[in-house]
């Protein structure tokens, strides 16, 4: 069953160009959205029982020959699969109308599904080299999607993204090679056991540092963030949403967390490194966002800042910190996807991304304005929305661990976040509408439907946050418990 998360998007991507010949618009829309809906249904309905049994796909047998296919599903991977499928479905629905003017929707959906297959594969594999391979599958599709508009800016941003992503991949594959050389294995558990059995702290630290730089680049943590403020605004809005909402989290944070917790164990030194990177990203990116005039560029800097929160929570390494970090991952995926999709609606209706040229759009686009307000307040951490609870949990975890400086920085960054989101609200939606917006209309139904679903999720998860945490976040946190024990025992020995 879990093989479906990789095979289904890949197979449908393979047949989409043929389907696109028969029906260039309708069938690709239906097929792509059906894939996301199916994966979401499987993840929600069958996932908990499969993950509860510790489901893994052992060696398959094909024509009597055992094949080396090993996949595993636990609470953490299930949580990410649900986020990918849910946000993917909203992005797919939004794309139905939004991508019409780009043309060649079959190719677009094929790339989106391949990127999804890459992310799902990365989440399910248990092997370092396969992490690298699926990382590349998702990355190659994303380069093309960033450049999909074929304009000068899109191509330049895509090339810059490709170059820095290739550097990240090089760091990752060097580390994988060194670990294989040290332990003779690529399986997470075997490599972890091998490292603990060897007395090679320096080489082990070097491998961890290489992963930190590689995945730090993928997650766009400061100072490895240079590609993101160009790539995310240049891509079509649904792709910006997929990149900010999903890709940097899966290929950056998920991979980093999984490998650090499962292979190295989160040592105090690693914990400190992650927390420092997190807090620098959180504060510096929030300050950089304040000076932006392009709405998508502001959202891109905001993504770096919010990824900083997630890394800070997970890097803290306490059960509550990890819980807060993972919860913020979900909340940010929903709210940031919503905001990027809305930026697409605004750009489609008003023809601009410049905040100084927008004014009073709320009267012309009431649904977009309302959902943008929900997304903004959620990310800024205003109660009772979902973002408030995850930020609160992170701050409480920092205070509990007596990391008062980090807690103060988290609160300061939250104030900055509220500040720049209020700038978006004031410039884009408030005030009297300009005469030039006379012909502006609200976005088409499917586009607003996708954003309304995301906005409702932000509100519902905020109200029922305890149920969300106990159902989805705690099993994800518990799946990382093995790595937690390493840091807890080392802290206990201090």
């Amino acid at each position, binding site marked *: 069953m879990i093989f479906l998360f*990789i*095979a289904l998007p*890949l197979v449908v*991507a*393979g047949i989409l*160009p043929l389907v696109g010949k028969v029906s260039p618009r309708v069938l690709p829309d239906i097929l792509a959205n059906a894939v996301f809906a199916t994966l979401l249904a499987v993840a929600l309905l069958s996932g908990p029982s499969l993950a509860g049994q510790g489901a893994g796909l052992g060696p*398959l047998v094909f024509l009597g*020959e*055992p*094949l*080396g*296919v*090993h*996949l595993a599903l636990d609470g953490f991977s299930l949580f990410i699969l649900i986020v990918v499928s849910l946000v993917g479905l909203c992005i797919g629905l939004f794309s139905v109308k939004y991508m*019409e*003017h*780009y*043309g*060649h929707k079959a*190719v*677009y959906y*094929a*790339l989106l599904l*391949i*990127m999804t*297959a*890459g992310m799902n*594969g990365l989440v399910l*594999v248990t*092997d370092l*080299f*396969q992490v690298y*391979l*699926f990382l*590349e*599958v998702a990355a*190659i*599709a994303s*380069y*093309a*999607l960033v*450049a*999909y508009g*074929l304009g000068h800016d899109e191509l330049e941003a895509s090339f810059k993204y490709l170059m820095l992503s290739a550097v990240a991949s090089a760091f990752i594959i060097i580390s994988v090679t*060194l670990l*294989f*050389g*040290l*332990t*003779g*294995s*690529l399986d997470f558990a*075997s490599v972890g056991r091998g490292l603990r059995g060897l007395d*090679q702290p*320096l*080489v082990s630290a*070097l491998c961890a540092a290489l992963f930190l730089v590689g995945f730090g680049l993928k997650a766009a943590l400061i100072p490895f963030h240079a590609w993101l403020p160009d790539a995310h605004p240049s891509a079509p809005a649904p792709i910006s949403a997929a990149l900010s909402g999903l890709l940097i989290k899966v290929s950056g944070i998920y991979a980093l967390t999984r490998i650090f917790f499962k292979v190295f164990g989160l040592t105090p030194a690693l914990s400190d490194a992650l927390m420092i990177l997190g807090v620098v990203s959180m504060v510096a990116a929030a300050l950089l966002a304040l000076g932006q005039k392009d709405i998508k560029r502001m959202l891109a800097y905001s993504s770096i800042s919010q990824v900083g929160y997630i890394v800070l929570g997970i890097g803290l390494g306490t059960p509550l910190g990890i819980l807060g970090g993972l919860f913020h991952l979900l909340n940010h995926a929903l709210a940031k996807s919503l905001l990027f999709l809305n930026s697409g609606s605004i750009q489609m209706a008003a023809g601009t991304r410049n905040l100084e040229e927008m004014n009073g759009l709320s009267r012309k686009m009431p649904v977009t304005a309302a959902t943008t307000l929900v997304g903004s307040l959620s990310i800024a951490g205003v109660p009772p929305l979902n973002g408030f609870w995850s930020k609160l949990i992170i701050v409480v975890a920092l205070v509990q661990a007596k990391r008062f400086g980090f807690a103060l920085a988290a609160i300061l960054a939250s104030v900055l976040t509220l500040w720049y989101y209020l700038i978006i609200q004031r410039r884009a939606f408030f005030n009297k509408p300009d005469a030039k917006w006379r012909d502006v209309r609200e976005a088409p139904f499917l586009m607003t439907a996708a954003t309304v679903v995301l906005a409702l999720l932000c509100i519902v998860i905020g109200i029922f946050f305890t149920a969300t945490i106990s159902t989805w976040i705690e099993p994800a946190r518990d799946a990382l418990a093995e790595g937690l024990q390493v840091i807890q025992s080392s802290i206990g020995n201090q």
Partner: protein
Amino acid sequence: MMAVQIGLLCGLVVFSLLAVLLRDILKAAISLAVSSLLLGILFFRMDAPYAGAFEISVVAGLITVLFIVTIALTKAEGDVRESRLAAWIFPLFFVVFLVIDFLVMRRLLGQISSVPSSAEAGTFGQVLWKNRTFDLVAQVGVIFAGVFAVLALFRKRSKHE
């Protein structure tokens, strides 16, 4: 024997550098092919014949042909001025890397005695088809992504665009 190995490694570094620094892209492509050829020979000498065969046939051969065909079919449109910063920064980084390599990596890598034998050991065919089967699924994904990326980037724009 060691002298030949060191000579091949030096050649690999020199031609890789030329591939990055040469302004004539045809010469850069040929330098890349030569560096790949040297790497392939190194693979053969280090008992990795399959890696050597793939390196030489695919990277030194097929990709170089693609590069040269593309260069031949491309016309230069105007003179694009490149930042001179790149010409300084790259060699600077290279020197820093060499220093780090000499001071740190040599000592660290010296600690890795040898690759221990593992359950994954076996003939090339056994490893590829039995132990690493799932890598092939990812390879299919990479090929799909590459093909669709080409289709997306070289598509005819619709009348709406």
